[in-house]
């Protein structure tokens, strides 16, 4: 069946070169009257079924498409440097100091709701992860920092994070004039997540 083989070759080239899917009646015109287009297309589709490209029927016509299972391998990864938002950095700090901590607790400590995606960003960066659930209503997820968090910040454990007194000594907890003299209460609050709430 050399003629059949030639027809399959032509079909193959047509599907490959066409900018859009080819309908069966178009194919009949190209192959000439009396060609069994349906059978030819089926044979070609079968011979490609296991390959890296498949012949598929799309929008009323046949076209080659890369095999769906290869999609993750086809994509090229590109490393992009991104900056975390202030909210994300603060959330990360709260998880670091107060872990295990629930989303509601983070929101209570920050005094504002967490925007959608803030925790996702940290999760994507590989710095936080959920670990277990809190007993209680709704059984919310507990969030903790990861070992790559420790690696990134050069810490052996979260216990190496400077304490509140040390932060204050370093000027990182300096409180503006509006706060008057109530700093000591804050220190106490910080030790117990949730008590920051207004």
């Amino acid at each position, binding site marked *: 069946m050399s003629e059949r083989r030639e027809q399959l070759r032509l079909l193959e080239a047509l599907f490959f070169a066409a900018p859009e899917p080819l309908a069966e009646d178009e194919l009949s015109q190209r192959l000439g009257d009396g060609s069994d287009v349906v059978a030819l297309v089926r044979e070609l589709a079968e011979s490609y079924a296991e390959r890296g490209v498949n012949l598929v029927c799309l929008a009323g016509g046949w076209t080659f498409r890369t095999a769906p299972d290869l999609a993750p391998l086809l994509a090229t990864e590109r490393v992009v440097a991104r900056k975390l938002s202030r909210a994300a950095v603060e959330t990360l700090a709260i998880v670091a100091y107060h872990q295990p901590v629930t989303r509601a607790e983070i929101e209570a400590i920050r005094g504002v709701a967490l925007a959608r995606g803030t925790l996702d960003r940290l999760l994507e960066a590989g710095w936080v992860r959920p670990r277990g659930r809190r007993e209680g209503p709704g059984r919310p997820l507990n969030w903790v920092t990861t070992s790559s968090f420790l690696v990134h910040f050069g810490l052996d454990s979260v216990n190496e994070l400077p304490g509140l007194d040390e932060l204050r000594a370093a000027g990182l907890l300096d409180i503006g004039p509006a706060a008057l003299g109530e700093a000591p209460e804050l220190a106490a609050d910080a030790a117990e997540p949730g008590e*920051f709430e207004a």
Partner: protein
Amino acid sequence: MSAAQPALVLDLDGYEGPIDLLLALAREQKVDLAKLSILALADQYLAFIAAQTRLCLEIAADYLVMAAWLAYLKSRLLLPEPPSDDDAPSGEQLAAALAHRLRLLAAMQRAGAALLARPQLGREVFLRGAPEGIPRIDRPVYSLSLYELLAAYGEGHRRVHARVLTIEAPALHSLDEALRRLAEFVGQVPEWRELASFLPAEMRGGVFRRSALASTFAALLELTRAGRIELRQDRAFGPIYLRSPAARRSPAGGAGAG
């Protein structure tokens, strides 16, 4: 010769310059370009140019320059080499150089034809008609220093604390509140009554009480200034009394103020 090539007479435009014309004439000699007789070719070219009765001089200028140069070359080939001028190329060298040029152009014309004879993209062969493209996935890398992390924590403390203060403020008795309260009593206090009896009933801690006293006193001053109430204090730090002005005590009656 001219009878053999009537087409050439009218058709200088068909040549891509004098070398191209020379090449066409050389091909008429039907010999290998390497064995070409430059002398014969020069004669042919000169005869061809001489036969052009309708030359457009503008187009033909470089053809005529070539004709002049070929006439010069011919004379160099036919006459004995002049003894002087050691550096000048001999007639043979000039002829060889011209032959090289002819072969070079001929080669390039063949090469061009060979290129065009190849299967060409979009004519004989086709690439993928609709390449799906290779998707790019960005893998984000975040940089953050420990300092930035700790500073953010401190910043959070600061902000949350400021929030506590703004929320506590409404727990005090405000001037607006005192004004609203007192406005209810205006016109209903015919006799002197002590200020303390107008303070909010639900007494809370010291700070609230002091703020209520202060705001109520400020409200009283405001209402007095507006003539809606009268104040009296008998001695420094003594109790403060208030009553409605005379006009308001008897809405139907005449004028008068305290």
